[in-house]
């Protein structure tokens, strides 16, 4: 029972760390999110941001765009049908998105935030009303594209990019754990 609780708490904590990492918008918040993983590999704040930007932000073409649309619909576009599908899901789940029509809803950080809040609802508040939508969101959407992002980022990594490599492994492990928990019965 205690192990189960620890496992649940770690599940939420990992998700929160991943969410915060991918939503970071400056060196400081990025470093804080990175340090929360307590990884052995340390990295300078500026160096981490430069690396992060090269992988996921730009301004040059990032190694792995952080939007689902790029992997599901069109390698060049944001705000596509899959983005609007995620918008519809969020709205049905009762979410309000302050950055609607500004940052696409299928940004990895936003999706991890949604998933975190849905897990929180179940694990901490014991509210299961959105569980089926959460399973659907994960298996029919997140599990479709985030592995592709990981693969693309891993493929494009260079020597010395260990910090990003570690985070991608954390994300990969998390996705594997979640993938094994639920299946559609259709």
């Amino acid at each position, binding site marked *: 029972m205690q192990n189960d609780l620890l496992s649940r708490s770690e599940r939420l904590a990992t998700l929160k760390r991943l969410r915060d990492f991918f939503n970071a918008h400056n060196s400081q918040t990025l470093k804080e999110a990175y340090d929360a993983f307590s990884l052995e590999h340390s990295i300078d704040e500026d160096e981490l941001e430069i690396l992060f930007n090269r992988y996921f932000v*730009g301004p040059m*073409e990032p190694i792995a765009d952080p939007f689902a649309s*790029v992997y599901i619909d069109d390698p060049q576009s944001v*705000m596509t049908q899959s983005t609007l599908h995620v918008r519809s899901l969020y709205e*049905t789940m*009762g979410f309000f998105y302050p950055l609607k029509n*500004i940052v696409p809803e299928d940004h990895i950080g936003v999706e991890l935030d949604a998933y975190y809040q849905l897990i*929180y609802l179940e694990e*901490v508040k014991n509210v299961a009303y*959105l569980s089926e939508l959460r399973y659907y969101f994960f298996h029919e959407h997140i599990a479709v594209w985030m592995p592709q992002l990981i693969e693309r980022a891993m493929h494009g990594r260079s020597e010395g990019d260990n910090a990003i490599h570690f985070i991608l492994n954390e994300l990969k492990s998390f996705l594997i754990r979640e993938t094994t928990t639920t299946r559609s019965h259709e």
Partner: protein
Amino acid sequence: MSYSKAKVEEILNNTISRRSFLKGLAASGVLSALPGGVLEANEDLNTKIPYSGEKSYQTFRNACPRNCYDTCSIKTYVKDGVMQFIEGAQESTYTRGGCCVKGNSYVKRVYSARRLKYPMMQVGGKGSGTWKRISWDQAIDIIAKKLLDMKKEDGTLLGAALTKYSGNFGITHYGIEGMFNSIGYTTRLAGTPCWPAGIDAQNLDMGDMWCNDPEEMKDSKFIILWGVNPAANSVHSMKYIYEAKSKGAKVVVIDPIFTETASKASQYLQIKTGTDGLLALGMAKIIIDAKLHDQKWLDAHSKGYKEYKAYLDKEVKLDDVSKVTGIPLAMIKELALSFAKAKPATVWMGYGMQRHTNGGSMIRAIDALVAVSGNIGKYAGGARYGHLNTWGFNYAALSQVKPEGSVGYTGPEGAKGEFAQVGGEKAAYTDRFLNINKTARELMSAKEPKVRLLWVACKNVFAQDFDRNQLIRAFQQLDLVVVADQFFNETAKWADIVLPVTTQFEEYDVNVSYWHYWLSINEQAIKPLFEIKSDLEIAAMLSKRMNQLSKGSCTFPQSVDSKEMTIKEFNPAIYEQFGIQSWEELKKGPVKAKAVIPYADGKFKTPSGKFEFYSDKALELFGSALPAYLEVRKPYDRFRMTSPHSRWSLHSQFQNLEWMEDFHPEPYVYINPDDAEEKMVDTDDMVAVFNRQGVLRVRAKVTDNVQKGTLLMYEQYYHNKIYNVNELVDDTSSDMGAFKTGAPGVALHDTFVNFKKL
């Protein structure tokens, strides 16, 4: 555990199921239990209306602000805040419901994953590729402090330079120049790389650059498309040409390249590059000798016809014309006589023709030919080049006063640019003007003070300007380079700070054309994505910060609304010209200026008030009063290289979009079969094209569309390739341009190269 995909999708897609689900959601306590994060609990969850998203389209009026003849009027369809598609406005008889392939890709452009999203700083130095996000406040603070430091150290802001050109021709985008006006006297890369020699030529001849309405071409009886390729670069004009042709008009294309337009013509003449002026002179001589010239009109409305005719009689030998132009004499005679007999007849002159060392003289010679034939001032006639007749806006965003006590340049007056010029009393100081066509060397050589800050807007310097290696050196010696753009391009690569700017769909603006006579409002259709801001907002932020640091240091408004700024651009004369009472009428669709036939009254804005075959001003400025034949630049290498515009891109814009990449994924050098054989090159071979300026490695296409001795490479930018045809172009000037725009153009097509198979 398991879930039902079908059940979830029923909830998402069936309005009744969804309503029921949302009611349960509201009752379940979910909303108060959500922890919150990037997403928040929706406290206003509407369970009364079955949710189906915002299914209906909102429509907005837009206009294409690119540097293109067509300046399409656009209707934009938006659903739930997301652009779905666009179409050409049906209300414009010119756009007539269709955009070009580039315009049709606008949704892709707006939502391109490659857009610049945040202000960023290249912390590892220019070209290092090490970028950090900075907030807008940080970015503006860095720039404001740099400007104020420079002002303190130099006693002037002439060390701050602006280079901006045709990336966005929306009228409020002159607010970028306004921003520079509002901080003091600064340095401007000015003039025009586009069409200055032709502007001068038309102004010398007619005192203006004022073309007939292109829609009239449907009633022309004879159309010469001279060095212009509308089938690729002004697709909306083609329907008038087709209509004229279907009604029996002859359509002749004169061009060194067998273009898409040539393939649609009644007749194609492949002229030797740079000899068009001589052909025009020869045709005029044939027309006059056959007494088919319009003596009555010439007597009443021209100056110097006698001298011009004497020149033709004495200096123009038809055998030489044939030999030099490469066109058989019989063909020249037939062309000249049939052109003179057809009424009305018109010539459309492309901009490529004047990008030669003799470019202005060639336009003057063709103007003279049209005048001789009596087709100036006639419906469906005219010597067509372009016009700025509908550009009489207030330029409110541009017109900012200098801060009190500003110190500027006291040297000779320089280039101004051709579009927006604001008059007024001559000041004690002026801005310092550097020649935009010699950007690299001008930036490096400017002294007292030297240029330390460069702001790049609406322009991709490294794709458009010349001598890339020298440009890199020039950029590296600058303390701060700010690039405001929509995409990361080669110029952004050499920036210190990049600022993401809006597309036309994310801001208000107003647009007119330099070719047709339509006026379009450009409404904001969607919110700006990410942290993107308009050029006007950036200027306002800079003003606010500069005034916080030093009160009175910037006069630009400290907060702006692009809609309000757009409204300020209108005036009674614009309303009168377009027959509207208010700008708001444009929300119903674009409107056309009241019909006017240029020079129909025989009055010209030249010093004599007549069409000037003999121009004292031309003699004073360019050494020849008459449109005399001027030989083109002598070759300095084995092959001539021309670099016209491609139909897949517009300068460096659009080619980075996947639709265009699908059709034209890489640059080519087009080589005549004889030249290819000599060098043992086949189609798809990689070749090096080189000269004293540089080298390019490109794939070959062997085609007799280009004539022997000439290579063709389109002027394009590829986001994923190091290709800039201008690396082979030196900055040798065309003959004219200094009269009206302050600086000569560039003789782009007088570039010479060699090549070899790799």
